[in-house]
């Protein structure tokens, strides 16, 4: 399914999901986080958007977490696949625009 900047952020808003973007990655014991979906708070966190992460990586993380939000499942490989599929259908222009928007939102 192709998407553009407007539609993806519209989807997030319509689903009443709050999106927060952090400049630094979140380092936890045993793992470094780039994105998190919290079903309790209905919140997607994107971490490390200003640290050596390409636009594609950044958008992949967003799509990954959106997939969790959409399906309600914690299956990481399924979310990864869904994110990759969507990225493959998108233009570099859209990916760049979404990444720019995310970087603008970073706290």
């Amino acid at each position, binding site marked *: 399914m192709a998407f553009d900047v407007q539609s993806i952020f519209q989807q997030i808003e319509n689903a009443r999901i709050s999106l927060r973007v952090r400049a630094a990655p979140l380092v936890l014991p045993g*793992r470094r986080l780039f*994105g998190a979906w*919290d079903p309790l708070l209905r919140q997607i966190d994107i971490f490390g958007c200003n640290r050596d992460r390409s636009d594609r990586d950044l958008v992949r993380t967003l799509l990954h977490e959106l997939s969790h939000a959409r399906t309600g499942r914690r299956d990481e490989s399924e*979310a990864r696949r869904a994110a990759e599929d969507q990225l493959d259908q998108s233009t570099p222009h859209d990916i760049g625009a979404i990444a720019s928007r995310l970087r603008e939102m970073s706290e």
Partner: protein
Amino acid sequence: MTALVGLALLLVFAIFATLMFLERISTLLALPLMATLFLAIALAADCWIGTPPPPTSQAAENKPLELPSFDDYLRARETTRAAIAARVERLETLTSTIERNSDPSAISGSLSAALLTARNAGNEFESVPNFFARPPHVSGYRASVEERLKQLDIVPLIESLSAIDFQNETFAKAELEKIAQRARMAITSAQPPAASRLAAIRDYFAGYFELLLRGGSLTLYATIIATIFGGMFAVYVKNLGIAERVIYWTAEFAGERPFVIASAVFVVTTTIFTSVGGLGTVIMIGSIVLPVLRSVGLSPVVGAGVLLIGIAAGGTLNPVSRRLWLDFYGLSPEQLDPLLWTMLLIYALLGFGWIAWGARGGLLSSFDSEATAKSPPRESIGVALLLAPVIPVALVYFARMEEISAFVVSIAYMFLCACRRPGAVRVLTRSMIEGAQTVMPPVLLMIGIGMLVTSLATPPVQSYLRPLVESAAPQGRWGYILLFGLAAPLALYRGPLNVWGMGLAVSATLLATTPLPPAAVLGALLAAGMIQGISDPTNTANVWVAGYSGITTAQLLRFTIVPVWIAAIVAVIVFGVWYVP
């Protein structure tokens, strides 16, 4: 008029509660200021308006209190003056018989007996209320008059009497007159001076304000000292890296299952906070615990809740708090401990319920992440030292040791375990100084609490406040359960049921004015304290935990308030059934 003065006192209470709620004034300042205003208003009313009628309600009958007024004080002054004047008069009578009596040695015997009697407070003092008294720190009006009499230096006079040469009658009579004159002067000096009404008012104010400032400041002295030793212990535990290592060890052994790891963290946090406290320790433990809980998928709200419930649960058994409850509510350890263990059980049920809810698959977070190596602990610590956080609690609750000794023994134990480390003495000394410094805010708060409690317990304040509080206080078990169950959130935002603020003032008033047993009043306050300890956005621990977890204190309040309130209602029901007839 009594009701108007009572309402003025309640207005002062409401104004300070609002100012504290709006964070316009610190509790440290608010409590002593409120105590001063309560006393000043009540004393002024007592002196210028008159004596309020004695309480006649059921509560007053159950808990009769002597509430002597300013008029009683004036009468007390007159009674003591008259009693001492009678002693002087007796000496004058004896003196007048010296000339007429042909046997000076008999007069000498009577004079000696009169001098000895003059030193003792007789029956006439028994009816005098001991105004402004808080033994052993403030002796009070009657006791000070009695003390002046006891200190009369009559031994030299009696020795002079026995040295008189009664063979020479003229000389003996002259000597007896001299001695009687000196005795009259000495006894007169012990007499309170005659004073105008205005001077009596001045003395009345001065007496009560001495009671407030000195007696009030020293009210919780045992708790204050226990707090200082507790602070030293907590900082020593922190400086030796014990708590940090315990948490790492727990996280390492609990694996990756969210329920298991959160439960293990909850139990360890509770255990650690039974003996330590303060924001520094919260930060130290929280900065280890919260990432661990987040890494297994718990929502930041759930992780923050686990930590805060653990802190509050551990704090229930904290020996310093226990000392405060013992001193403040006048409970015995046999009465208090079951109440505290019950609270711990309710906290445990709440904690595990919270974890079971938050660790359900549907609420766990999903991550886009990459694996990294786990950071190793700072240094290895022996098992003997790892046991240190539970030692004070074990000593207090199981060995029945009092709190200060328990902390000293625990500090000595830790030092013996760590004495081979380089700079061990320096770490101990630094911890003692830092520990004493870190507990200064609660110590100052305790001084203010002592003043407020003293002020509320004075007869003038009681006389005016009691009728109003009586009318609002719960009557019976169901009233207690309904009122304190529904009102538990009033502990939020430094409200009137806040354990470490207005709640103690409310408790003091309820204890002094209603038939509720002290255990029931404490139980209601501890139940409300659950909401304050876990959900209150004005807690410094909550502010830090929320900020570190990337959530807001309002979110924390929104998610925790319902389960914690339910737990508080359960606690109120249990205590209502147990303690309120």
